[in-house]
């Protein structure tokens, strides 16, 4: 029983991290039909910058803030320089964002050095609680709580605020949104920046969760985020939470019971979903 609980907590924590990464991707896709292959690059930049600031200042909070800021800035750069010239052209988008992914990944090695780095949690998040026989690792609970908070906050913004409504309306019918006098490009940029910020935040959290960061994580996590977005349904925000948790749990359980398959399980999930339900599990109303 305690094994199952700890696996579930593992899975939920992983799921929350993937969700933060995928949330931006799915909104960007839904709104602009841009598939951003550089999303994982924003993730590692968040991770490295966050860790660097955290280790320099000894303040995890400062690290988180630094990570988010770099994410927002890189999101701005990516949208203006990389994505904007090729709006509406899927082939070019896929190619160009992939190229930018490579550049981001290599730049990490230039700026922070090519070696992997070890990261430890701050004291107040290290260690674990005991409830009966069950060991609860603090940091994982922290991630689950933060992930849920961000989900709730984002949902409230999307459902209640006018900007949230505009974003959702944009996913459904861009032309009409513009015809109502809304500058959709500005909305695109904002969503892109927020998505990038979330990806970077996910990177900061993940660095401590896995205890080590390396530049190649970027592409790996791009792929993971895609898998989640595909399973959850492109453009669906709550779909990406569901899919991220599904992937997180599948990974946690497989890693324990069938380690040989744990690497493949996500891809298998995506292959199955794409073949039988290409629109994903949750579909956005057009």
């Amino acid at each position: 029983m305690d094994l199952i609980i700890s696996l579930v907590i593992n899975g939920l924590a992983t799921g929350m991290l993937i969700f933060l990464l995928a949330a931006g991707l799915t909104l960007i896709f839904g709104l602009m039909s841009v598939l951003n292959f550089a999303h994982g690059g924003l993730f590692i930049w968040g991770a490295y910058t966050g860790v660097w600031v955290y280790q320099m200042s000894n303040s995890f909070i400062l690290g988180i803030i630094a990570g988010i800021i770099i994410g927002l800035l890189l999101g701005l750069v990516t949208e203006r320089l990389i994505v904007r010239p090729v709006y509406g052209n899927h082939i070019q988008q896929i190619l160009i964002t992939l190229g930018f992914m490579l550049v981001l990944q290599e730049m990490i090695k230039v700026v922070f050095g090519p070696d992997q780095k070890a990261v430890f949690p701050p004291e107040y998040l290290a260690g674990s609680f005991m409830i009966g026989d069950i060991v609860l690792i603090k940091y994982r609970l922290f991630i689950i709580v933060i992930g849920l908070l961000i989900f709730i906050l984002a949902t409230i913004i999307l459902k209640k605020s006018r900007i949230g409504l505009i974003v959702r309306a944009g996913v459904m019918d861009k032309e009409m949104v513009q015809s109502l006098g809304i500058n959709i490009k500005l909305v695109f940029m904002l969503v892109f920046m927020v998505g990038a910020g979330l990806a970077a935040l996910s990177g900061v959290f993940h660095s401590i969760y896995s205890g080590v960061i390396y530049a190649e994580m970027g592409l790996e996590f791009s792929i993971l985020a895609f898998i989640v977005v595909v399973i959850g349904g492109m453009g669906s925000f709550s779909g990406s939470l569901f899919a991220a948790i599904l992937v997180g749990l599948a990974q946690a359980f497989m890693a324990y019971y069938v380690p040989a398959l744990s690497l493949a399980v996500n891809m298998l999930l995506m292959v199955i979903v794409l073949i039988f339900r290409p629109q994903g599990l949750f579909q956005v109303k057009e």
Partner: protein
Amino acid sequence: MEGLLVLKQVEAFIQHYHILHDISFEVPKGEVTVLLGRNGAGKTTTLRTIMGLNQVSKGTVSFKGEAIANRTTHQIANKGIGYVPEDQGIFNGLTVGENMRVAMKKEDEETMKRMEWVLELFPDLKKYWKKEGGQLSGGQKQMLAIARAYVNKNDLLLIDEPSKGLAPIIVDKVTESIQQMKEQTTIVLVEQNFMMASKIGNRFYIIDDGVTVHHGKMDELKEDKITMKKYLGIS
């Protein structure tokens, strides 16, 4: 005096297809101008081109004396043009209320007043305030689309075939509501339903094959059987 909206020799393409060849018309303030013509003549494209959803390749479009050709759509809309597209452009996943909120540029007293006015005009919208756009009937969608265009203080409304696919009784209702709005704003109406067009319209332009071929007062057109037959197929 020059009209509120003036198009001069406008040409436009969709992809490689030359759709508008020579569209020229003038919309006087405070009147309803109806664009008539067969299916595929270029009426919808004309409205889309005014809104900047289609590029103007030649010619000029001016609104309140200011050139607006090839501005971005939101800039054009913010000059004071409301648009009701042919497919109504309802955000299906948003409720009626949320659809209205996306449209409202301000939430000041004046806008609220307009909203109340329009909700009185279309009590159905008030009734289904929390219903999702996708679950509305065709007529309700049309009303929502019109309400959404009206709620901001626009000087001009472009309405594309409001009667399309609606039951006759609903058409009457929509007709009546547009007649009421006419008191407060200028309207360009694309309409196939001649009955409706002739009831609301002050003047008309006939578009044939991307060219404005004929225009005049609505009352004159009713008598002009030859033109009606030639361009509209009505006898």
